[in-house]
């Protein structure tokens, strides 16, 4: 079991979701995050120009069985890319155990 975390552009979210469905990854969580980086966003407010380095992205967290790891990663790599700076990152982490609360099942079965 692995946890796959990805930081992606919000504008790519729908495509990523569809790509994940296509490899039968149907359950995941996501939340909106703000980060800092090299990307600058130019603004003008009442005659004053300023830029923010605040970057808005979506953070996706997916727990999958080992045989799903590579298809999931490939799906995200393909669907989230624009080939411009700022497309995001994917992290893969080990997961010790998983339980389904309703039935008490544990391990790989609990993820399906």
């Amino acid at each position, binding site marked *: 079991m692995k946890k796959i975390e990805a930081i992606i552009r919000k504008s790519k979210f729908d495509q990523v979701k569809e790509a994940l469905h296509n490899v039968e990854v149907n359950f995941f969580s996501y939340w909106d995050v703000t980060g800092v980086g090299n990307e600058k966003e130019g603004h003008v*407010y*009442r*005659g004053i120009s300023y830029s923010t380095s605040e970057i808005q992205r979506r953070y996706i967290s997916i727990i999958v069985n080992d045989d799903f790891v590579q298809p999931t990663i490939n799906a995200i790599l393909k669907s989230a890319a624009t080939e411009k700076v700022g497309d995001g990152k994917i992290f893969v982490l080990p997961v010790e155990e998983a339980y389904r609360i309703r039935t008490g099942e544990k391990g790989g079965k609990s993820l399906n």
Partner: protein
Amino acid sequence: MESTALFTANNVWMMICTALVFFMHLGFSFLEIGLTRQKNAVNILFKNFFVITAGLLLYCIGGFNLMYPGFEEGSMGFFKFAGFGITAPEGGMSAEYASGRYTWWTDFLFQAMFAATAATIVSGAVAERIKLKSFMIFTVIYVGLVYPIIGSWKWGSGFLDQMGFYDFAGSTLVHSVGGWAALIAIYLLGARIGKFNKEGKPNAIPGHNIPLASAGVLILWLGWFGFNGGSVLSADPELTSLTLVTTCLAAAAGGVSSVLFSNILYKNFDLTMFMNGILGGLVGITAGADQMSPIDAILIGLIAGIIIVLGVALVDKLKLDDPVGAIAVHLICGIWGTLSVGIFGAMAGLNQFLIQLIGVGIVGAFSVISALIILYTIKATIGLRVDPDEELKGLDLSEHGMDAYPDFRLNQH
């Protein structure tokens, strides 16, 4: 019979205008909240509620009788008080009271709606850092005494009126009176934390709700139909319709010139400049709305729009912090509007221009001195400004223990 019908029509128009001026307080509230940060929204609303409620009560207690004390015919009235409370005089409800234009009650309420406006102007400029108590004390004195005394010099037939000074609906008497106090207040208060960087360059502190600010501007524009339209003081068909035409054209011209000029300077289509430009045009036409031809009104508005862009930059340059642009809109365009009566329209002339200039100077001096005395005394005693940590936390929490949007979830693009 016909005169009764006319009296009724006049009075209804004046009451509609009264309601429209009341509605402007919602416009001011929306504009001020929209152009400031969400952590201070409750505080700004509270101040606006206080201004309208206290303003009405103060005007009833003494303001009206201070502003319209009935100076002796032909005297250079400076100060007179006709007593506490409002009691309609004999015949106050009949057509005889004001040549069939309105009843005494209507007169009171229409003028009362104006009174609170001066303090509302200050509220926007001092937003996000003034102590609530200090603002309330200032409001009571400024709306209760300073505004009606100045008003009596012109609208109460005092010495400015005798001199020939003209201010149709209050470019000077309302907008500049509020604007001068706002200027003194932001000078004594200092800028918000973070407004200027270490090198003294201004930072942008974007407002948190531009759609709300836009609603505020359009509501204010609508309210101006009553502010200027009602200042005809009757439903005179020719004058009211001319006034609404000049008012709307100046607003439109102010908005357009402001946004074009700021686009040339800053290479950007700045909606907040559009908004301030519209308001600048409205304030600019207010002094002579019944004296101008449509083309005069457009010229006044166009110039007001340019004044707004330069005025906002000037305030920044002077290291003053005016979150909503009240100085540029109400003070500078108020002065411009008052002077424009001597430049454009039916009253134009060097002599009139000089009288307008003297009026602006006298009202300015009195407003500045009284605002300085009141605000400096408050600063030296209970203090004018909240502590830095209260300011950073936001006045909603530190002054009210409330959030404006406790359940609000931000979902940025």
